[in-house]
Structure formats: C-alpha cells, structure tokens
C-alpha cells in the first residue's frame, strides 16, 4: 500500500545542503504494522513527515525518490489532492499530546472538525456528529465519553489527551496511521495501555500503522515488521522476530543489546558508538 523508494531529503542551510535521508526505502502492506526504530537524528521523524510532504520547504529539499501510496507518487500530486490524503487517508499522532490539541476549543469541536473534513458519510446534524465522536472516544477507552465532550484539553490528563488525539486521528477512518513516538511523553503504565489500545483498534479497523519509536522494547507483539534506521539510512528491514533473534547489522545488534530485560544479571547497559 505504501512504498517508499530511495527517498533522499536534505536541509538547506547557509553552508549548503545537509543530507538527512540518504535513500530510504520502506514498504508497508494494508493492515500491517511497521515499526521504524532508531536513535534521535536517525531520520525516523523526517521520513514520517515526508510521506505527506509535511516538511516545510525551505529548508527541506526533496532530492529524489518516490513515495507511492496506493499506486500514486505523493511527491507529485497536487496540493488539493494532498489535503484529501492528509488526515483522510493518512492520519498522524504526535509525541506531545498536551500541545497537539488546540487550547481554545473543546475536544468535541476539534474532533468534529476532522469528521466534517473527511467523513462525508456522517450527516451534518449535531446529534449525528456527537454520536460519532462519542463512538470514537469510547473506542479509545475514555470513560463516560458523553460527559467529556465539552471538556477543554487542559482538563484532561496526558494519557487522556493522547487518547483524544488517537480518537481524532481514527475518526477519519484512515487507511494508514502514522504514530510518531506516540507514547514517549507518557509514563510507562499509560504507555502500555495506549499501545495495547492502538493494537486492538488496528486489528478491528484493518488499517496499517507506521509506528516510529526509539524504544525497541515496545516493538515485539506490536509490529510484525521493523525497519532499523541509522544516520539517514535503513540499515535493516524485515520481520520483527527474525531481526530480534538474528540481527545482521552491527548497529541493530548493539540496539537490541541495549534493551533491559527482566531477570538479567545486573550489568552496565551497552552503549552505541555513533556520530551524528
């Protein structure tokens, strides 16, 4: 469904163009989850944002490659076409839920905006839209969703805010959900709840998920395939279990060795030699 071929992106600065992605290739099938894992600055987020051309140009420069989504190259489609894809076909969830919601609107009006934009099948009446919003808030595990409709973002906890963000992203019924470190800002118990919810909803709705993370530990059980990124390149791409069992690239080996395991002998965590 999504195929990225040899994507090259750089950022222009006074001293010329600094390359950020040196030919990234990835593929993702309908209904499956692909995790992109890598350290800060490895190009994970740039890749994610590049998919719907969200990088501001300038400074970003698309230097080459193709992003094929359902057969069309998103780097070539018109802006109007792209707006329909954004949100409607490809939805995003970001890391920081507290700043991702507009502080001056209730959660109802923010989710309603999404539904009005991308769900022509939902009737325009308040009751119908409310019912749809309540459905999604309920789906992401918010208790008594009808009572929370008119809450403002500051009245919700971080975990609740992230659930609202997920509800908002899902309410457009996207084919692909890109989750850019969706749980990094949350504490560990909430993190597990949110990730489990995300997995359940994915199976229920049959959408594809592109999960971006720097935390290898959350990937098993969540993503069937994984792509390991390092310094703007995909160094390893394949089945999660296989890569965990038998990593090929020295960076992947080091990354996997870093995952703390329950019952391990106490030892220093391994560090990774790298230059960014």
């Amino acid at each position: 469904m999504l195929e990225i071929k040899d994507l090259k992106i750089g950022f222009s600065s006074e001293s010329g163009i600094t390359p950020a992605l040196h030919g990234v290739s990835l593929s993702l099938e309908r209904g499956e989850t692909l995790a992109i894992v890598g350290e800060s600055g490895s190009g994970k987020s740039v890749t994610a944002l590049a998919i719907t051309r969200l990088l501001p140009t300038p400074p970003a420069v698309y230097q080459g490659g193709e992003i094929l989504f359902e057969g069309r190259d998103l780097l070539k489609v018109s802006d109007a076409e792209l707006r329909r894809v954004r949100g409607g076909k490809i939805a995003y969830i970001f890391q920081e839920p507290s700043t991702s919601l507009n502080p001056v609107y209730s959660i109802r009006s923010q989710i309603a905006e999404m539904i009005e934009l991308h769900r022509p099948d939902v009737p325009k009446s308040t009751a119908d839209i409310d019912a749809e919003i309540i459905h999604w808030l309920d789906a992401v595990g918010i208790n008594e969703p009808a009572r929370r409709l008119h809450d403002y973002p500051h009245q919700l906890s971080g975990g609740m805010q992230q659930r609202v963000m997920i509800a908002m992203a899902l309410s457009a019924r996207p084919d692909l959900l890109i989750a850019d470190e969706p749980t990094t800002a949350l504490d560990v118990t909430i993190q597990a709840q949110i990730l489990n919810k995300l997995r359940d909803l994915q199976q229920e709705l049959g959408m594809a998920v592109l999960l971006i993370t720097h935390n290898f530990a959350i990937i098993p059980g969540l993503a069937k395939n994984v792509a390991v990124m390092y310094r703007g390149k995909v160094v390893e791409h394949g089945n999660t279990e296989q890569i965990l069992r038998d990593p090929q690239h020295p960076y992947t080996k080091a990354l996997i060795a870093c995952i703390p395991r329950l019952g391990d002998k106490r030892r220093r965590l391994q560090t990774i030699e790298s230059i960014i």
Partner: protein
Amino acid sequence: MSTLAITPGALGAVTQETPGARILRRFWGNPIARISVVIILFFALTAGGTALLGALGHHWPYDPNLTNLDQKLLPPSLQHWLGTDNLGRDVLSRMLNGATISLTVGLIAVAVSLGIGVIVGAIAGYFGGLTDQILMRSVDALICFPTFFLILTAVAILGPSLINIVVIIGLVSWTGTARLVRGEFLTIRETEFVKSARVLGQKDWKIIFRHILPNASAPIFVTAVLGIPDAILTEAGLSFLGFGVQPPQATWGNIIADSKTYLLEAWWLILFPGFAIFIASLAFYLAGDALREASNSRS
C-alpha cells in the same frame, strides 16, 4: 487497567470554563478595570443618548449650535452647568456632542486599523518567506513616516470630513497591530496543534482563522483597546489644529481650539473638554492594561 483507571467523576470538580470566560472573570476581579469600564460606559451612554436625541430633533440641555451673543463667555452656573463660549453656545451641550465624535472616531479608526493589521500580520506570519519580507518591509517604510504629518497631509488633500478622518487615522495606525499579529503567528504556527491541523488536511485560511487567530486574540484585543485612546487623542489634535471635523460640529478638540483666544478670561472653556479627553483616554488605557494583565496566563 480497570483497577488503576481513575474514574472521570474524580475530576468532576474541574469547572468547564472557556478561556475567554476566565479572562473576563479575572478582568472583572480587578477594581481598576471596573472603574474604567464604568467611565467608558458613562461616556458611551451619554454619547449614544445625545446622538439619539439629536436624531429625533431634540437637544439636551440646549442646541449645541445655538448662538446667543447676550450670553457669551458666561462662567458655569445653574443655567449653563459648564458655562458658555464666545458665541454664547452651551459648553455642556457641545461637549456631549463632541463625545459622540470622539467615541465614533476611536471605535471606527481602531476597527479599520485592526482589520488591516490583523490580515497583513497574519499573512506575513503564517506564510513567512518572501511574502513576509515584502509585507514587513512595507510596514517598516510606513513606520518611518511621522504619522501625525502623514494624517495632516492626507486630510489636507482629501478634505476634513468625519469619515475621511476616521479612515485616514485607521489607515496609518495599523502597523503596530500588524507587527504584533505577525509575532504571535510566528510563535503559534510552530505549535503542535497547528501542525496537527495541517496534518488533518485543513486549508490554510481555516488554519489561520480557526486555529491561530483565536489563540492570538487576547493580545490583539488588548492593542485594540489601547488603540482607541490614541485615535481619540489624534482626532483631538487634528481638531485643535483646524484639520479635524469642521465647525459648527462640536468636538472636544475644536472646543479647546476655539477657546484658546479666551484662555485667560474663560478657564471653563478649556478645562472641561480637556478633562473629558484626559479621563476618556485614561479609562481606555487602564481598561486595556487590566485586560492585558487578565489575559496573561503566567501571572
């Protein structure tokens, strides 16, 4: 998870107060704000009442343009509470009519300058790049002109009618608003929720007006309120120089201008309109300040 989940009922005590309502509540909690609002309301009601009476063909206490040379330059008395001028016209009646002019000028000039300033600032701040450069360099160029002389020149060319004056004041005073709005937009457009709106496939103009502008509305509203006394003072200055709204229509500025020859013998001619300008401007400034304080989330 069910054992750990906090029921929403536990959070039920949190009130559902909109950000606007919070600002208003904090604004009203400030005694200075209340006094300013009362003064502004007093001016607004007298101005409105006088305009309404005038439209119905009535005058209170007298016709502001009725001359009576037998009664010229009378000091304040029971017949003429604020005295009479050199043509025997009642000063109170003229000041009431002047209040209408001052408030009209203040409100409309600010509306004009706000309209231009917000649009220019929003476009410059949101789109950035070359658009921003062109717009903001034009603003810089406009700021280089001494505003008051620009207004004088424009009035001299176009003629000193009320509508001309209001529009001209508005047209030369939007630069500060544009800079402020641009600054707000530069900050807010980088926030995650604006990114989210773009990610949702929202159109640029909807992002500008629906997502960014409401978040910048508090400082914009404050500059608007602070712009009103500036416009009132500018109009008074123009009237004093004879470039304002033309006699016989009374304005606070031209009452003072007419009286400058009689300054030594008729103190009431200059004191009362001067005081009205001072109090009205002060009330707007203080209200604007209180609003800024109320909308500052850090305090």
